[in-house]
């Protein structure tokens, strides 16, 4: 991967990597570290990573960096206020839908942050980032069948948590 290809990959994927890390780590400060480290590691390994697979390599690296950080710190069920403040609802919706979407979106962020990181990862990679199953299975290093079962369970857990929080999806 030459310099130009690397810069292209960075510009295309930096925000997705950062978003994933922010929601996995439930905060933006450490997410910046993860995003920077993942991109710098890609630069260091650019000789053996092709442009077409760089996005997969980045996500796997970012995921592993997030897991390292989570294991090093004590889990906290609270969502970082800096993460919540950086979120804004989709302004293309009308006012009523905007309010509804904002409330649901905010609650989804909160309850997503409370899920175990295994379930949070699979929802982020599949539902938020839209990756295919095969890639997610490689990133998380789990069999395809296990991955699907985990995703189904995670969807239902999130639904249950939302209902308990008083928000009917």
């Amino acid at each position, binding site marked *: 991967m030459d*310099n130009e290809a*690397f*810069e292209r990959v*960075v510009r295309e994927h*930096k*925000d*997705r*990597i*950062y*978003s994933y890390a*922010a*929601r996995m780590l439930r905060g*933006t400060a450490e*997410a*910046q570290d993860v*995003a*920077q480290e993942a*991109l*710098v590691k890609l*630069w260091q390994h650019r000789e053996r990573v092709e442009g077409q697979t760089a996005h997969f390599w980045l996500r796997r690296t970012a995921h592993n960096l997030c897991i390292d950080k989570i294991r090093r710190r004590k889990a906290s069920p609270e969502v970082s206020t800096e993460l919540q403040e*950086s*979120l*804004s*609802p*989709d302004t293309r919706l009308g006012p009523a839908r905007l309010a509804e*979407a904002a409330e*649901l*979106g905010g609650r*989804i*962020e909160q309850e*997503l942050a409370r899920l175990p990181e295994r379930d949070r990862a699979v*929802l982020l990679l599949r*539902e*938020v980032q*839209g990756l295919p*199953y095969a890639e997610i299975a490689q990133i998380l290093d789990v069999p395809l069948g296990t991955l*699907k079962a985990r*995703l*189904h369970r995670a*969807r*239902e857990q*999130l*639904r249950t948590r*939302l*209902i308990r929080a008083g928000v*009917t*999806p």
Partner: protein
Amino acid sequence: MTAEERFDCASVREAIHAKLDAAPLDTALRERLEAHLAGCSDCRELAQELRRVQQGLRSLPELQLPDDALEQVWSRTTGATRRPAMRPGFRLAAAAVLVVALGGLWLLREQAPPQPTEAELHQAAAEARLVLQLSSRALRRTEQAAFRDVLTEEISGALRRAPIQWPERSVAERRGS
């Protein structure tokens, strides 16, 4: 037990998830699913709620990596191995800074009395530093490389090539000693 009876809520649950996964369902399975949902309010509610959870997740906004974090990436990667190309706008800005700095120094030279005192020398140096500081702050926000290239190399180089020529007096005389 008929096939329909075997297609109970537990089986429907899996089919609902398969549909959310956009997995292809054969016609028979799809028809059994639709028939079950039409008659089971619990499963129908489950399907609708899971669909909205999925839509809510898909609507979560993408966060933007802050500019200073991206700048750090560039400085540790491509920015570390090559001089970044200066954008035309920054060439103009850099040229303007150079003109202002040199013009300021020329004016100071022209306006300086024939016998500058030590205090006047210190004042001139302080004003030149202020100009450079304000200019560097503006440039640093977007192009650290331009600051490095222009202010430390080109202006310094220009000053070296066109040093200020003071009247022919000894340093001691100018300092009043």
